[in-house]
């Protein structure tokens, strides 16, 4: 079992979700995060004072998939989340020791 974490641009969420569904991914978990990286933040102005905001709104998608699905899932995310502009984000893959579906108690592949 692998966990894929992808940090993407917020407006790409729907496309990535559709893409993953098409290859058979059944579930995912999404978090609003703030990213810091090569992509510049912006300046805000309040009463004549300038404030630097370094963090950029991003979406983190977490998808757990069976090991044999990883490559395909990663490919889909890469394709769908890509704009080619700086700040498109990252994908991190890690391994899980166990996955459990709370409702049924199923473990492993069945639990996803």
């Amino acid at each position: 079992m692998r966990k894929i974490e992808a940090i993407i641009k917020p407006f790409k969420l729907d496309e990535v979700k559709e893409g993953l569904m098409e290859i058979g991914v059944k579930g995912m978990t999404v978090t609003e995060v703030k990213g810091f990286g090569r992509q510049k933040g912006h300046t805000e102005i309040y009463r004549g004072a300038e404030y630097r905001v370094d963090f950029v709104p991003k979406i983190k998608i977490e998808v757990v998939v069976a090991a044999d699905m990883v490559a395909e899932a990663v490919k889909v995310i890469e394709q769908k989340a890509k704009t080619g502009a700086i700040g498109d984000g990252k994908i991190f893959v890690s391994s899980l020791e166990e996955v459990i579906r709370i409702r049924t108690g199923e473990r492993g592949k069945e639990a996803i």
Partner: protein
Amino acid sequence: MVNTGDTAFILVSAALVMFMTPGLALFYGGMVRNKNVLATIMQSYIIICLVSVSWTLWGYSLSFGPDVGGVIGNLSWFALTDVGLTPSADYATTVPHLAFMVFQLMFAIITPALITGAFAERMKFKTFLVFMILWSTLVYSPLAHWVWGSGGWLAKMGALDFAGGTVVHISSGISALAAVLVIAKRRGHGKEQFIPHNVPMTVTGAAILWFGWFGFNAGSALTSGGLAASAFVATHIAAAAAGLTWLITEWIHRGKPTTLGAASGSVAGLVAITPASGFVGPASALIIGGVAGTLCYLGVMAKSKFGYDDSLDVVGIHGVGGTWGALATGLFATVAVNEAGKDGLFFGNPAQLWIQFVSVVTTWVFAFVMTIIILKVLDATMGLKVSDEEEVRGLDITQHSETAYNV
């Protein structure tokens, strides 16, 4: 004799002015950080309660009661004794005395509330309550008496202040300056970024202020008619002009026109026109407001220059705007608008500018010195500022055991 139209106008005006203080609560509340929004709102809200009681008991009598040497009213109207359903002999003679009293009360409420922006995000609530009672009694009441009280010395000298340039705005703005010199800065001031947590809240507050200000200025005519209409128009035009000039100034200075700038600018215009509103025509109002927008912007810039921590720019807006307005009254006033007024410099009477200047300086000095004294005493006895840890956790939790938003 009570006139129904005048009374309707004053009562509705009083309601409008009352509504300004919650408006101010939102205006200020939106500009602080999340963790301090309730404490900021609370400071305005509780002043409504606090000053209403003290005004009923002794504040009104001190301000408008029978004159003692031009300096203060006596206490013979304590608890509104003799303040009844028929008009007073001295004030607003076509409306019930109680109506005049309650209209004035609303001014007595908002003035100290304005100061709270200066020390937002850091004052102890308990000390705050005591400060406000003292300030209202020792600073506001005398000033109100001097300018508006029957027999007050500034009034006798001929100072013009239609709706509170000195009494309300200079007094609060300069007391704010005194406060930020005495109360320590916020932790992280100059290093951390203090960004408004809810700008729509602030704009909503500005809009309520603008709305209520019609009662503030037009209501100060104390009758319903030409003068009220003229003051209403001057008020509106000045606010609009200042909103635009602030916007343009920051657009030039920083390259962007901001929503907070438009809101701040219009408030600056409202401040500046306040003393002049019943003495000047529409074209003058346009100029007074237009200048105020740029001037107060510069006033706000001053704080980073001098390094004091006036959290929400009370000095830059009310101190600067009020001073400009009081002086501008000496420039633009004309008896063509208000026979009971005077002509200003531009209408051939340079003396008026001098009188205005004296009243401004007097108010500056009086408000500044008194506020310093009060705060120094409170600092020594009760402490002014919350602890560092309380500041970090925020005043909402530490002073009030509440959080504003629970999503």
